[in-house]
């Protein structure tokens, strides 16, 4: 009775379990501004959904969660649309480039190695850096807060970005720099996301925080706004070319995730930015360790179905 049949996935799953999965991932999405694809897709694989259907249906689900999250953050004045559009354009360009890179790697026969290593390295670097930085900030909160208000000593990075042409003021984020910077960073994140087969929220968030120097709350709202468009594109493309979006699966997940995203967005307002960062860093590191363990331990089965990573 509780087992709902998923017509595209071709299997049935407990409706309460799916609802719970959606809720948990949506909560994290609203809290941190990540799409949650790097958590949801492995979870769906674990409960027996074919990997291609899991990834495609998940992107459909993220459309709902990020709509809900973007809407909630927009009401609180946390979305920098100008920055979001520039990152989005960069992301689309980078994604297209990344897909071509993967094609070349596949032809060379070591795509999987590059994907896995990129995954572990990115999660590891992002997780450790964010974790240490937030821990430091939490310890000497007052000092850091004051320091951030100052322009700070011009490092090579700062001098470089100040030298770029077409400087622009981003009111919402309270930063001024060249239009090229978010475009270039967007392209880089897009390439990595395409290689890893994820939305890239967990790379984009640290990029906005550390390289674009945006306030954490605006980062979350802006990231969700950008993820929304990426996932609309993926859902439609997957439906047209691979026919593997399971609408029944997506709807159950998205009812859970939109609910979770609202609660997450509320909580993100209450938590301190460094607490948010340290939590996200911990989750990113946990996923990294889990992937690393699966790479090191001998798998139970030496044959697997195609799709996903």
């Amino acid at each position, binding site marked *: 009775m509780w087992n709902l049949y998923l017509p595209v996935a071709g299997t049935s799953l407990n409706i309460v379990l799916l609802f719970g999965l959606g809720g948990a991932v949506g909560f994290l999405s609203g809290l941190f501004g990540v799409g949650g694809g790097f958590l949801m897709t492995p979870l769906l694989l674990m409960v027996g959904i074919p990997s291609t259907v899991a990834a495609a249906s998940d992107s459909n689900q993220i459309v*709902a969660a990020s709509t809900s999250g973007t809407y*909630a953050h927009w009401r609180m004045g946390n979305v920098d649309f100008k920055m979001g559009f520039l990152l989005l354009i960069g992301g689309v360009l980078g994604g297209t480039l990344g897909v071509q890179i993967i094609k070349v790697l596949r032809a060379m026969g070591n795509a999987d190695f590059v994907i896995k290593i990129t995954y572990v390295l990115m999660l590891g670097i992002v997780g450790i850096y964010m974790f240490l930085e937030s821990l430091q900030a939490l310890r000497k909160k007052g000092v850091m807060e004051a320091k951030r208000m100052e322009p700070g000593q011009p490092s090579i990075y700062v001098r470089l970005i100040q030298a770029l042409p077409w400087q622009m003021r981003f009111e919402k984020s309270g930063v001024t720099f060249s239009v090229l910077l978010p475009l270039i960073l967007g392209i880089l994140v897009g390439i990595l996301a395409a290689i890893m087969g994820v939305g890239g929220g967990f790379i984009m968030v640290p990029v906005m925080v550390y390289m674009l120097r945006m306030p954490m709350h605006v980062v979350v709202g802006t990231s969700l706004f950008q993820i929304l468009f990426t996932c609309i594109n993926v859902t439609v493309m997957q439906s047209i070319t691979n026919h593997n979006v399971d609408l029944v699966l997506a709807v159950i997940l998205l009812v859970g995730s939109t609910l979770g995203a609202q609660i997450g967005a509320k909580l993100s307002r209450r938590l301190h930015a460094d607490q948010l960062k340290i939590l996200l860093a911990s989750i990113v590191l946990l996923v990294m360790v889990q992937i690393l363990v699966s790479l090191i331990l001998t798998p139970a089965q030496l044959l697997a179905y*195609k799709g996903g990573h």
Partner: protein
Amino acid sequence: MLRPGKGWRWSGVALFFGLALGAYGAAQAAAPEFQVTPDAVEVGSFFEGAQVELQGAIPPGATAVVEVLGSTASEALLRKGRRGGLWMSVGEIRVHNAPSLYLVLSSSPQIPELTGQETPWGIAALQRKVKFGGRIEPGEQAKFFREFLELKKHEKVYGILPGGLKVSPAQGGKSAIRGIIPLPAKVPVGKYQVKLSVIQDGRLLSSQEKVLEVKLVSFPAMLRDLAQQQGALYGVLAVIIAIATGFLMGFLFKGKTGH
């Protein structure tokens, strides 16, 4: 008026048909009788797999084997291996001629074997049928057949169920057999061949086949057709539903925070 010769001829024809009918009846008696109920399984919105009941009669002292076979197709699977000390996919293995579903039930505690000839059912028979291609060395066929079997058993689409058929005495000096064919939730849609074979003293006495159909009905059927045939429309619909739900949830929560 019929001439005597013609009359003889007619009775000859009648005699021939009578004999033919008799022979047909005898053949029917020799072939095992069985039914599967239901003979069509409908997959609707709520489906957790199905239990198809099988009932039949076999000669006393004989052993029954039932095979449930799905259509065969080729599929590509990823082979895992070590690269730089780490486990990952190292290539594709193509599997040919493997049925989408394979279940074997028997009335004996072990799946019976034929003596003096190859047994056409069971694991060994399956292994003879299934062929591997792609990134696989000649010496690895047996190893990857075992891996393939494990993968399918894990999904419950392959199953060996010795003792899955219960035997009880029935009228007419025959033995009645009963069993449950467990179709998992992952059962692919399609037509399945259900084959009953009767064995005595290591010899195949007779066999008979029935068709079992698994089909999508109502909402799941509609949705899958839409996904397959109208990809663009389906994708746009999926996006609209997602955005609408996202906004709706936003509005609901907005109302709550107002208090």
